[in-house]
């Protein structure tokens, strides 16, 4: 009493349910990038909103002091500050919020009282190149050294190189400022090899002269080294752990069995796969590195956005504080987007999942 279904299809040629799912290949993972950008826009909105609410939690007398100190302002500037800091008691919270968003859209971040009533935007624009240069270079150097180092340590497991891991991890648990201070104490004060602080010598005019650039390099070495040393440990540890996992995979054994030279196996097979999670964690740690760099700028009196933010905080220049915070957050988000794009391009699986 067997029943059968009509044999209209060639079963062997048809294959299984799994293979029948249609698949197209996209070169650029638009959906992935789109989702990330949407997320970052949301984060930016959250940061803006936090920025909006914090001064409104201020105590009343601080507000009055602030106004009292700023008598020489133009009426427009005063209005802008009022909107920024929530001093308009005759407008509803929602109206203030809309005003604030409008200001941001115009690029108006208020007036900086500690910089002679210069617009906040200008003050930040002066400080930004120093920070971007310092952090950008430091992060790249640290990432490269840490990742390459981690790959090598993972490859040569059990060797004396293993000692590098606890050393660099130890260094990354030491606060940035401590490393910076020790660097000053040892290399600048005791050994006198480097200047103590600032980006260039007092009295030197900035410009594209060799003397200026030389001073920039000289003054920038210790801050750069501090950031690199402090953040190295994380990259190295992560990469080495991933290498150990990847090296156990069968495809590495196959590559070696095929007779592929060890160098190729290490770099083109193992490291290439182990580096993917590193790029993801890179995106996440940008925020942390920026935080550390702010501290380093303070320690070395380096004229970047970080030091500007801290000086503004101590001087209670609220408009500059908020402007600086926003710019820093924006920079971190942009860096994150770039890292996400890099990851999407490098990991074939994200491209596949677009299909």
């Amino acid at each position, binding site marked *: 009493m067997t029943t059968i*279904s009509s044999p209209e299809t060639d079963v062997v040629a048809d294959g299984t349910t799994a293979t029948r799912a249609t698949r197209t290949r996209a070169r650029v993972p638009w959906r992935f990038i789109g989702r990330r950008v949407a997320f970052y826009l949301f984060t930016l909105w959250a940061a803006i909103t936090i920025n909006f609410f914090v001064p409104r939690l201020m105590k009343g007398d601080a507000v009055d002091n602030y106004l009292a100190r700023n008598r020489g302002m133009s009426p427009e500037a005063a209005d802008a500050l009022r909107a920024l800091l929530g001093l308009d008691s005759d407008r509803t919270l929602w109206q203030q919020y809309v005003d604030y968003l409008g200001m941001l859209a115009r690029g108006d971040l208020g007036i900086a009282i500690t910089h002679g009533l210069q617009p906040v935007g200008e003050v930040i624009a002066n400080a930004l190149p120093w920070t971007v240069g310092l952090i950008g270079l430091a992060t790249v150097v640290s990432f490269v050294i840490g990742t390459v180092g981690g790959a090598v340590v993972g490859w040569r497991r059990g060797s004396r190189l293993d000692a590098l891991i606890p050393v660099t991890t130890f260094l990354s648990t030491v606060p940035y400022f401590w490393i910076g201070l020790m660097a000053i104490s040892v290399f600048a004060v005791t050994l006198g090899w480097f200047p103590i602080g600032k980006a260039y010598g007092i009295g030197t005019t900035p410009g594209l002269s060799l003397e200026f650039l030389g001073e920039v390099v000289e003054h920038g070495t210790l801050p750069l080294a501090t950031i690199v040393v402090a953040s190295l440990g994380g990259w190295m540890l992560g990469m080495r752990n991933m290498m150990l996992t990847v090296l156990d995979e069968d495809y590495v054994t196959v590559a070696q069995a095929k007779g592929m030279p060890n160098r190729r196996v290490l770099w083109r097979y193992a490291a290439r796969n182990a580096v993917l999670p590193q790029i993801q964690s890179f995106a996440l740690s940008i925020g942390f590195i920026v935080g550390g760099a702010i501290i380093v700028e303070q320690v070395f009196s380096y004229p970047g956005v970080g030091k500007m933010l801290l000086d503004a905080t101590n001087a209670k220049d609220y408009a500059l504080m908020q402007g600086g915070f926003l710019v820093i957050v924006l920079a971190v988000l942009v860096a994150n987007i770039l890292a996400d794009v890099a990851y999407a391009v490098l990991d074939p699986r994200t491209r596949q999942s677009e299909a």
Partner: protein
Amino acid sequence: MTSIDVQGVSKTYRVRGAGSIDALSDVSFTLSSGQTIGMVGQSGSGKSTVAKILTQMERPTSGQVLLDGEPIPTRGAALRAYRQQLRMVFQDPFASLNPYHSIRHHVERPLVLSGVVPPAQVDAEVHRLLDRVQLDAGVVDRRPHELSGGQRQRVAIARALAPRPALLVADEPVSMLDVSLRMGVLSLLSDIQAEDGLGVLYITHDLATARYFSDEIIVLNQGRVVEHGPADDVILRPQHPYTRELREASPDPESFFADHVGGAR
């Protein structure tokens, strides 16, 4: 006498970016207590989807499932009662037991939750169940990683039997065991089925054991039932071309030698 009636069940999964996959199309069969049905098919044929729908880990896109004539309950106390009537043995003995908990925990929980025995007798019942699956009593305080695959699968069977179900779905229960252990576990299942009068849906890709243990065999291909009949008929006298392909694909030592080596058997 309990029976579960699958009527015209289809299940379609949406895959992001790749449209949809028809895992099951218009599958119908009836499983009654005292009967074993073998469900065979290659990977991706939809066998596991049938298991998921019977245990209600998934809902059918269309069609219905009836238990003794009534649609199976989908929530609340009625669903819990249903899940005591129809139990499942999972495929992977390594993954189906919680590595943190003792064997006692695994067998005890369904007992406690179903209330088939009063609390005072739970401990005795745990021992009785373990004895039934031929495991030593000392195993109760062990953790899964200390047991072999075969022992773990026996624990999984004991867990399945705890609430005294009428129906059992065994999803490839021996596929991940050493070949030498398979017959032991399958014989155990067969004995229990006979003693308790269970209705068993035995899902497998192995035709030989399917034939050995089942009264009826259902052949699935690409989510459709292509053949359904008494076990010996389907295996020995397959009518559908797919069933024939399946049988050809199973390695049979005798015919291998006859075809390739030639000479006397």
